[in-house]
């Protein structure tokens, strides 16, 4: 390398180094400014919402007035970050509220500008924006957009399909499970957990017909999801299916069954006995040992099951 080349390299390095340092300082300053803006927005929102939900006599605030106040605080189309922040605040508030106030917030969301933000996001081509839009719609309980969400239940992007599936469950309850046998793509653990939770939030009683439709699915994730639903609703009648699943090829399916039987066994000790007697049929030594360890933690089971105590003494 010749000296002029090295000089150029030094100059370029110095330039980028300087840019980096200046940008860093600007960024720290901007973050402080942004923090102040957002806390101001939060204060205005809290003020408006409290007046809107709990008005003083003769001081009823309208949704138009709320919209105007928020607009003054920076909620405008040209500041999408502020809009997102406002939606987050609304979701958080709505989650904390119940009854009439829950519906009031839902109404406010659909009445204040910028209108239709979430459904516009659903139409976006970017997966992250699309999934966020779907999430906002079900979190803010806006079932009028369900038709636009349905086509995404088997979308290639995991986040889009996850949010779409959760939205279906939120809006349709047990009926939504009819999409499960058609699912060809993977259903992640978090997706399963959320579906089960939302389903339980929507309907505390179970509909076994929709569940049994899924038993023949070849997708192990769907089977896992079904087992989680059995566990959540404490359905004792499905032992045949659980027994069969205990020998399934997929490790995770078997894992889900073990946890399910243990959980069902809290109310019905017969389930734990079933698990103990079937443990040798599980095609994994690691899981067989695991079953013993789980059962060992349950003192009542040890006391009521002499064979287990003998096994315990032998190995210890």
């Amino acid at each position: 390398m010749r000296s002029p080349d090295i000089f150029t390299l030094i100059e370029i390095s110095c330039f980028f180094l300087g840019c980096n340092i200046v940008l860093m300082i600007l960024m720290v300053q901007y973050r402080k400014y942004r923090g102040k803006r957002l806390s101001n927005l939060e204060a205005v929102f809290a003020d408006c919402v409290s007046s809107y939900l709990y008005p003083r006599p003769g001081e009823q605030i309208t949704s138009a007035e709320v919209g105007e106040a928020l607009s003054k605080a920076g909620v405008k189309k040209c500041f999408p970050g502020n809009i997102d922040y406002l939606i987050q605040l609304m979701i958080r508030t709505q989650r904390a509220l119940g009854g009439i106030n829950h519906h009031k917030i839902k109404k406010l969301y659909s009445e204040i500008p910028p209108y239709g933000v979430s459904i516009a996001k659903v139409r976006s081509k970017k997966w992250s924006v699309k999934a966020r839009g779907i999430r906002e719609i079900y979190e803010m309980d806006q079932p009028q957009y369900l038709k636009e969400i349905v086509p995404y239940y088997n979308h290639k992007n995991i986040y889009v399909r996850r949010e779409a599936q959760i939205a279906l469950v939120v809006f349709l309850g047990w009926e939504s499970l009819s999409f499960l046998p058609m699912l060809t793509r993977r259903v992640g653990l978090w997706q399963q957990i959320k579906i089960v939770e939302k389903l339980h939030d929507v309907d505390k009683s179970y509909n076994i017909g929709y569940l049994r439709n899924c038993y023949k699915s070849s997708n192990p994730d769907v089977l896992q999801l079904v087992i989680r639903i059995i566990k959540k609703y404490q359905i004792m009648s499905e032992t045949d299916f659980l027994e069969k699943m205990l020998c399934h090829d997929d490790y995770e399916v078997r894992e889900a069954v073990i946890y399910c039987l243990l959980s069902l066994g809290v109310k019905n000790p017969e389930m734990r006995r079933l698990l103990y007697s079937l443990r040798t049929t599980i095609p994994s030594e690691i899981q067989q040992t695991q079953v013993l360890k789980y059962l060992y933690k349950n003192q009542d089971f040890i006391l009521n099951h002499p064979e287990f105590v003998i096994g315990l003494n032998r190995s210890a």
Partner: protein
Amino acid sequence: MHTFIDYFSWVISKGFFIYGACLTSFYFIGVYLANRGILKARRRNVFLRSQDVISASDLPHITLIAPAYNEGPTIIDNVFSLLLLKYPYYDLIVVNDGSKDDSLQKLIDKFNLEVSLQNPSENPIETAHVRNIYKSKNTSYKNLTVIDKENGGRSDAINTGINFSSSELILCTDADCIIEETALVKMVTPYLEATDKEVIACGGGIGLANGSSIEKGVIKKLRLPQNLLALIQVVEYIRAFLLGRMSWGEVNGLLLVSGAFGMFPRRRLVEVGGFDTSTIGEDFELCVRLRKHMEELNLSYKIVYLPLTLCWTEAPETYKIFISQRDRWARGLCETLSTHKKMIGNSKYGTMGMIFLPYWVIFEFGAPLVELIGLLYIIISASMGWLNWEVTFYAFVAIYLIGCLFSTTAVFLYVNYFNQYNTIGQIFKLLGAAYLEPFIFHPILVYASIKGYYKMLFNIKSGWGTMTRKGFSSANSS
């Protein structure tokens, strides 16, 4: 003769230039990949927030294994902090690895421990003899188990914890680390989100808490260390974790999840036989072995790195301890590369065999050697009068500036994405340390690595060395 020297000199300098250019290019590709990875992680985080995980049911059960050896002064505070983590389903196993101090007695007294029954099943991994297992009589600590065993080293202690656990996931840490309250929630997310590829390990960032205010094992105020050596290591950790690991994670090329803070599925740990007790670089070795295992099973897998500082530890503040630590790391690297040498350049192991491991050999193992040879070459050239001082000086300035640029970019990303060091004063302190690093830190680092290689080459046994810590609670509480 002159022509030969000219030719030799030309070859050597071109060799150094190509090596340096490749390394610099890798680093800047790393910056791009790390930035992309952080942005992706932030986008994904919108859909899986910590609050949602904490309130969820049916989450995977986690066992936190913390080996402890002679940690009497801090053990109670540290166990308390590990019991305060926010996650609905976790157990804590503290493995007393034959401590010679009063660690065990302190635990028994404080947590009201009593001897419990042994496990009902055979232990899948062979370990040193377990003397007793303790559980607390106090129901507030029902998720705490203390295992007292004969001394067998850190890996053996973790393996004992693996044997006694029954959860799906295992988080390995050290009893002297401070873990963020929401660390488990964050660490479990890759497992919750996994679909096509199985997550076989997950690591998080490790930060240095020297100089911070710590009370009862919890960081109250994060400060930068006053000690220059520790301060430089803060920059080094930011660079290594945020840029290095994040970028490797982005291309699924992570070969190392830090032993101080790593989560693994128990099933896979048992399948590979747990940590290797015969090596000092056990965390690196385990990751390579896990990857090898998955390659041999022909299963899709990934190792995930989370761009968050979730665990805090203490950096050595004296050169003696620092050299001892880095010498050990260098030996660990040599041992693992040597153990798995058949995988290097072996297409049977895919990108790991053809790209990731060769990178480690050439640029991680090779860098200190190349630097040493470079230094010797400059000294010889200077003494023989072959050196063009002007070019050498400017080349040195250019290399220094590129190094500074890289460190500044790492600090920039850290400040931009995380809210931990966020004042102008702290930023300038970090930058100052980064610009001093090549003069006062790097030569020592190279020396320590060469020392480690030398010990390996001549089979000089020196074990783990003494990593004396000042102790968070005693030294830094305010």
